């Protein structure tokens, strides 16, 4: 083959190859959209937030988003969360999904993120910041109420309480003072979640007890015959609750606080203990187990740490109010992704709570809540 023929041939092949490349690039030339990056910031390194992380990561994988996960050291560690928000701004994330450890403390960081065009989503509890688009959580008041339904049942079904009620003359105050059964409340330090839970718990306890008493035609007014007002009824049942306890942020603190009451002068009056989060539940169960009071004192706790489930199985805890952390993480990321695309999302989503006892531990839904990543 002479030189000019080689050149011609090479030119022809090059033109064909170029045409093919142009054809390919022309068809696929649409610029690929950037991947959405979402920062997920949670409260502390316990199993509950581990489940949130799993949900967030599953949603990230399913939706094709990049997830940057950070967790603070404890549920009052807002400083770390501010740092995480600043890092997210620097990383130019598209959205932040955060379970806030503070309210006002995070406002400046929120503002910087909002100014940077980052979408803000709350999970677990809502901050009072104007640009929070939505909050995926379970209602803490309702969670307290669900715990209360079962606690009230326990209280009213106790032999001593039954005796007092069936006499038809008992007043709430008398019941407590005569040692029939008080409810000890061990709360955690995060006010945003602890106080609504306690409030919901106490309110529903009173409602349930009044309702049950009415249902059984028990006069709980002390024979006055007059139907008391709601405020009077609530005041009447107020002594049931030992709620002026020290708020606890760790398992040890909850243990110490519980032991203080279990070894104190009113120890015999305590029939039920309500713990408001994982650490307090573990502390309470530890104390009850050590005092060998399992079965005598009815513990209703919060969340589904493996150790808590073990306490439930061994009978130390009567029941646990389980939230839906996996769904919080999952829906949080899903909503964040929609918000980035400016799609409409609900202003709030209640993922609900479930009361888990030894009776329903193996139910399908409870197993889903306990093991969402492998279900």
């Amino acid at each position, binding site marked *: *083959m002479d030189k000019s023929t080689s050149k011609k*041939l090479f030119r*022809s*092949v090059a033109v*064909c*190859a170029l*045409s*093919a490349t142009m*054809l*390919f690039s022309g*068809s*696929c030339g649409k610029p690929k959209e950037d991947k959405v990056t979402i920062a997920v910031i949670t409260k502390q390194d316990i199993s509950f937030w581990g489940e949130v992380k799993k949900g967030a990561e*599953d*949603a990230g*994988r*399913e*939706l*094709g988003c990049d997830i940057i996960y950070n967790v603070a050291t404890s549920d009052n560690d807002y400083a770390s969360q501010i740092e995480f928000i600043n890092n997210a701004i620097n990383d130019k994330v598209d959205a932040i999904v955060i379970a806030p450890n503070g309210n006002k403390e995070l406002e400046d960081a929120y503002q910087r993120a909002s100014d940077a065009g980052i979408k803000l989503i709350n999970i677990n509890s809502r901050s009072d910041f104007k640009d929070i688009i939505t909050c995926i959580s*379970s*209602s803490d008041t*309702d969670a307290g*109420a*669900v715990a209360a*339904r079962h606690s009230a049942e326990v209280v009213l079904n106790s032999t001593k309480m039954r005796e007092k009620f069936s006499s038809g003359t008992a007043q709430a105050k008398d019941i407590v003072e005569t040692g029939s059964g008080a409810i000890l409340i061990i709360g955690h330090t995060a006010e945003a979640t602890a106080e609504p839970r306690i409030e919901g718990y106490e309110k*529903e306890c009173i*409602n*349930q007890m009044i*309702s049950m008493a009415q*249902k059984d035609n028990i006069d709980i007014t002390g024979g006055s015959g007059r139907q008391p007002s709601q405020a009077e009824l609530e005041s009447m049942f107020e002594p049931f609750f030992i709620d002026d306890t020290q708020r606890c942020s760790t398992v040890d603190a909850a243990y110490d606080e519980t032991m203080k009451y279990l070894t104190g002068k009113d120890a015999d009056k305590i029939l039920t203990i309500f713990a408001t989060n994982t650490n307090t539940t573990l502390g309470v169960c530890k104390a009850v187990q050590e005092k060998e009071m399992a079965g005598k004192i009815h513990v209703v706790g919060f969340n589904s740490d493996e150790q808590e489930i073990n306490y439930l199985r061994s009978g130390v805890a009567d029941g646990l109010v389980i939230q*839906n952390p996996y*769904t919080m993480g*999952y*829906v949080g990321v*899903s909503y964040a992704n929609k918000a980035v695309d400016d799609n409409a999302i609900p202003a709030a*989503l*209640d*993922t*609900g*709570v479930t009361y888990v006892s030894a009776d329903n531990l193996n*139910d*399908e*839904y409870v*197993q*889903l809540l306990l093991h*969402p990543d492998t*279900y």
Partner: protein
Amino acid sequence: MAKAKKKNTYSTPYIFAAILLAVIYVINTLLVERIYWGNSQVSQQTQKTMNSINRMNGELQNVNSNVLHVVAGIGDVSQAAADARLNFHNIHEAMDDFENVEGLSDDAKKRYRHAKAIINTYNTRLEEFQAMWNKADPSGNGKLGAQAFGGDMNALYTQDIYPLQVTAQEMLQGTIEIVNRDTSKKMAANAKRSYLLMIMMLLVAVLGEVAIFFIARRAKKARLELEERERNLAEVDAKLKSTRQKANDLAVMNVLTGMKNRYALDNDVSDRLESDRFNIAVFDMDNFRSINDTYGYDFGDEYLATVSEKLKEEFGNVAEIYNITGNEFCFLFNKEISESQAMGIVQNIQAVMSSPFEVLNLAVQLPCSGAVYHYLPGDCLNVNSLLVKLDTAMRSAKMNGGNMINTVVNI
């Protein structure tokens, strides 16, 4: 046969190229078909999946609506429960449809399992509430039924029902998004395969064309080489034939006079001795040796050549002339020449041979003697004996003074 084989050799590359192109296009068609069916299957699968999930969602919303009516104290609780049972029946049918869809991703299956678990729990919880309601309110008094739940239906709905509704819907929505995403991925993969196929086919076509170009070029070159070789062979063959012919001619020809020689006469006459009747004569210059002795052999040769040319010119059309020895010529008369004509011709031959010839600017003239033989079939056994007879008659003439013609007498 050789020609057919040559034709086959030329067309083989083209047949190969045609088969190659056919194979390429068959493969192309199969691949395109596969991509088409892949897209079609993905569409059908997506449609089936979406139908079942949308049905689940729709029925779930109907359940929610019924539940809300009951919570709000509107409508008949028993009717609402019956409707809810039907709704859940439809949801389970849709679930069966969904579970029969093949090729769903693990993510889609997992998200669906979550949705299913929540919907089943929702169903169970409603049935439990229905049972509690019926137990508390067997006569259908709504107030009694509501009392079974602590009198606060709204709280019950908010705490136990609503979260299940919304999380079930979120999980179904999640399933839809995964299926959509999976569908997009599959479609994108198919589109990518299509583009790759197009590029591959383009490259194959280009390479095929280049290959065909080279094959054709090579075939042409081979054909030209073959033709060149054949030409060379033909030339060699022709040369060989010519050489052979020359060799043959030299074997039967006198180099000096260009006439046939004694061997040629032998070849031409042998077969005729037994069966033919013909006239034959020989002539020889008288005292030719004196020319060689006087003028040299070269002159003698030139003289013979001149005489030969003259004889061929004068008698080539009536007889085949042979130069059988140095200056002796033999005339084999054509068949149509009769004995009397032959006698006349030999007189003329003698006259021509005896006439003066100009050789190298010298006029030379020698008498000649000859003998003629009217041959009859079977007279001689071979050409030698025939020539002996003729030579004997001619020597007799020479011995009698020469310049005369004797006739061979048959005994």
